[in-house]
Structures are given as structure tokens and as C-alpha cells.
């Protein structure tokens, strides 16, 4: 109890609404499904415009980088992504809205980053890419861009169920010196101000997202690390099982919201 008061009153200093842009009555169109709202609806008009203009959106530089890499032969097998997958607009259309998925052949949950690396190491005999490297961000952005506008719909039953439960538990687990869970900020306080930020629902439908703060795109797992660090909790590794499970839960929370990759956020 004492922990909560300290955290909320002194360090986090949540204040209600003054800078919040939206009111309950606002019509957010495709960016809202039932009570679920994309981070887009919490952004300023200028940030929204930067995302909307397909040319001005700086993250499109990474998408273009990914498109080039898609067609480039790499690795000892002498193949490119295109050699096996052909036209990404057709073959990658549902990836952005349905991942992470339980991959039967490796017996675990897999996100787009891991799937790409599996293709690189096993199918191309090429080196794996690091999370948040320019190559990986470019390729994930390019692949997910093919699902632009599609409603998010991850599968959480069957073999994915235990992962989902783990992610769900993570979401409400208090952590760090501030003793706060994801839900304290993104469920209980969405729309309120924290320091100089408007808290959103913490949706994952725009990733990799170009953050004005980072001045480049970053992965969802990088965002998780940042949010863990904010409450002075030890972050997990990008690509860890903990974050994979959390990714599944976060994507499910945003079910029905359109894929916005690459989104622009503060």
C-alpha cells in the first residue's frame, strides 16, 4: 500500500486529464474498436499527420530498406526472401495481424522477428539479424506493412493458450521499485498525464514504431524494456520468452484495431 502511494504521489505524479486530447464522445473511426483505442488517438494532430503522410512518415525509409533486402540474395544457399515467398503483398498479407503464433515445428511461440531469423539461418544459410538492427527493423516493418489496415486477430487457444496466460499474468504483475504493473498505467490511467506524456492504452498495433524520442523506429520488445525501466524494474531481453508471451497478450488486447505499421508516436 505504502509503495503504491509513494509511486503515484511523488515519482509518477499522475494528473487527470488537462493535456488529454480526447473525450469519450470523440469518434476515432477505425482507430477505435469498442473500448480499445490505438495510440494514434492519443497523439497530437502533428504526430498523426506525420504517420498519415506515407511520404513524410520517416519510418517509411526503413520499410523501403526492408523491401530492398527482400529481393537481395544473401547467405550460402544463394536465396532471397523473394526466391521462396515471391510477392510480399500476397504472401505476407496476414502476418502482421496474426503474429505471434505457436509454431508447431519448433514447439514454441514465435513472433515475426524470430520467424525471419529462422528463415535466414535455416532456409538461406545466412546470419541471424539482431533485434532492432537496421536490417531487422526494416524487414519486420516491410513484412508487417503488408497487413496495413487489417484487424488484429491473434490466436490464443490451443497450444498458444499457456503463452497467453503467461503474458496476461505478466501484465498485471507489480514490478520494480515503483511496484507498478502494466495495467496501472495502460488500463487504469489511459488518457491521464504522466510527467509530460499522455498515457495511451499501450497497444501494439503500430510496431515497429517510429518514436520521436528515439528518432528512429524500435521494436515492441524495446518498448517493453523501456516501460519496465520506467518503474525501475529489471527489463527482460528482447526476444525472451517472457516478452514473447507478453507480446501475444498485448496483441490480443488490441484485437480488431488496424495494423498501423509503421506508426509514429511521441
Amino acid at each position: 500500500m505504502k509503495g503504491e502511494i509513494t509511486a503515484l504521489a511523488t515519482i509518477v505524479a499522475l494528473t487527470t486529464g488537462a493535456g488529454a486530447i480526447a473525450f469519450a464522445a470523440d469518434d476515432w473511426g477505425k482507430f477505435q474498436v469498442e473500448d480499445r483505442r490505438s495510440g494514434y488517438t492519443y497523439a497530437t494532430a502533428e504526430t498523426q499527420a506525420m504517420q498519415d503522410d506515407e511520404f513524410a512518415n520517416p519510418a517509411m525509409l526503413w520499410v523501403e530498406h526492408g523491401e530492398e533486402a527482400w529481393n537481395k540474395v544473401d547467405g550460402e544457399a544463394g536465396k532471397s526472401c523473394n526466391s521462396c515467398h515471391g510477392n510480399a503483398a500476397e504472401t505476407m498479407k496476414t502476418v502482421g495481424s496474426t503474429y505471434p503464433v505457436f509454431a508447431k515445428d519448433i514447439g514454441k511461440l514465435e513472433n515475426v522477428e524470430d520467424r525471419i531469423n529462422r528463415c535466414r539461418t535455416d532456409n538461406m544459410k545466412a546470419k541471424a539479424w539482431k533485434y532492432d538492427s537496421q536490417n531487422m527493423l526494416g524487414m519486420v516493418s516491410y513484412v508487417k506493412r503488408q497487413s496495413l489496415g487489417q484487424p488484429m486477430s491473434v490466436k490464443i487457444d490451443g497450444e498458444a493458450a499457456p503463452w497467453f496466460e503467461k503474458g496476461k499474468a505478466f501484465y498485471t504483475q507489480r514490478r520494480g521499485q515503483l511496484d507498478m504493473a502494466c495495467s496501472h498505467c495502460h488500463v487504469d490511467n489511459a488518457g491521464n498525464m504522466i510527467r509530460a506524456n499522455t498515457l495511451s492504452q499501450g497497444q501494439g498495433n503500430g510496431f515497429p514504431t517510429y518514436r520521436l524520442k528515439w528518432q528512429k523506429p524500435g521494436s515492441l520488445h524495446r518498448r517493453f524494456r523501456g516501460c519496465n525501466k520506467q518503474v525501475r524494474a529489471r527489463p527482460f531481453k528482447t526476444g525472451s520468452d517472457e516478452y514473447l508471451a507478453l507480446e501475444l497478450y498485448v496483441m490480443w488486447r488490441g484485437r480488431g484495431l488496424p495494423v498501423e505499421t509503421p506508426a509514429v508516436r511521441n
Partner: protein
Amino acid sequence: MSKITDKTTMSRRTALELAGGGVIAALLTGTLAGAARADAALLSDAIKKAVGDSAMTEGRITLDLPEIAENGNTVPVSVAVDSPMTEADHVKAVHLFAEKNPAADVASVYFTPASGVAKASFRMRLAGTQNVVAVAEMSDGSLFTAKKLVKVTIGGCGG
């Protein structure tokens, strides 16, 4: 001289950041006035370097910036100058300055009659809440100016 100026500016910024405004900021008003003078000196030096010190008239410039910028790293700015853009009468350049950035210069854009209209849009860094100043140089040598206050919630690393 310039070294001292820099220091004053820095320490005030740091103090403000730590204090987050309010009571401590009020205690600092003495320092603030000094720092404001220092900023003004940096700005006028930068302007002088770009266009000399002829008189400037307010007007003819539309400076489009958000009233509140979410993040100082990336603030969209658009500047337009009213002009026929002919060989005889056109805008040669527009210089943009940020009053309280570590260095006041932001960018200069150079137009020609082939531009058709004197308008440019880009994105700039602002180290904190401050005035953005535009100075337009016409083909006849006359100067026009405009400024706009931008409130920055999270400062960019400036420039």
C-alpha cells in the same frame, strides 16, 4: 564572454528541468532575466551573421508551427512568404532561428523564381519552449520577419 553566456544559459535550463517549473523557477527569476538577455544576444548575432543588420519589417511571412509540440526532437515547421516570385521581385532566402536552442541557427532555404511560390516545410529540434524566428530576404534586399512561440512538452536535444 561567449563562454560565460553559454554557462548561464545551461545552468538555467538544467535548473528548470529539475524543478519542473513552479516554486523553484520563481526563485530563479533573477537568473532568468540574465539568461533571456543572453539568448537575445545569441539570436541577434545569428541573425546579423545571416543577413547583416539592416532594418526588418514584420509581415509577409506565414510561419506555421504547432502551438504545443509533443516532442522537441521533431517539430514540423512550414514557412511561406507572400511574393509574386518573378525575376524582378522574389524571395531569395528565408532563415530560421530558434531563440533558446544551444545554437540559434536552424536552417536557411534559398528560393528562385523557378520555385513558383516561396514555401518550404521540414522538421526541427527545439530544446524547450521558445520563439521561432523567421527572416526573409527579398530580391530588392529588403528584410521581413515573423516569430511564433512554441510550447514544448519534452525538449529535443536542440542543435
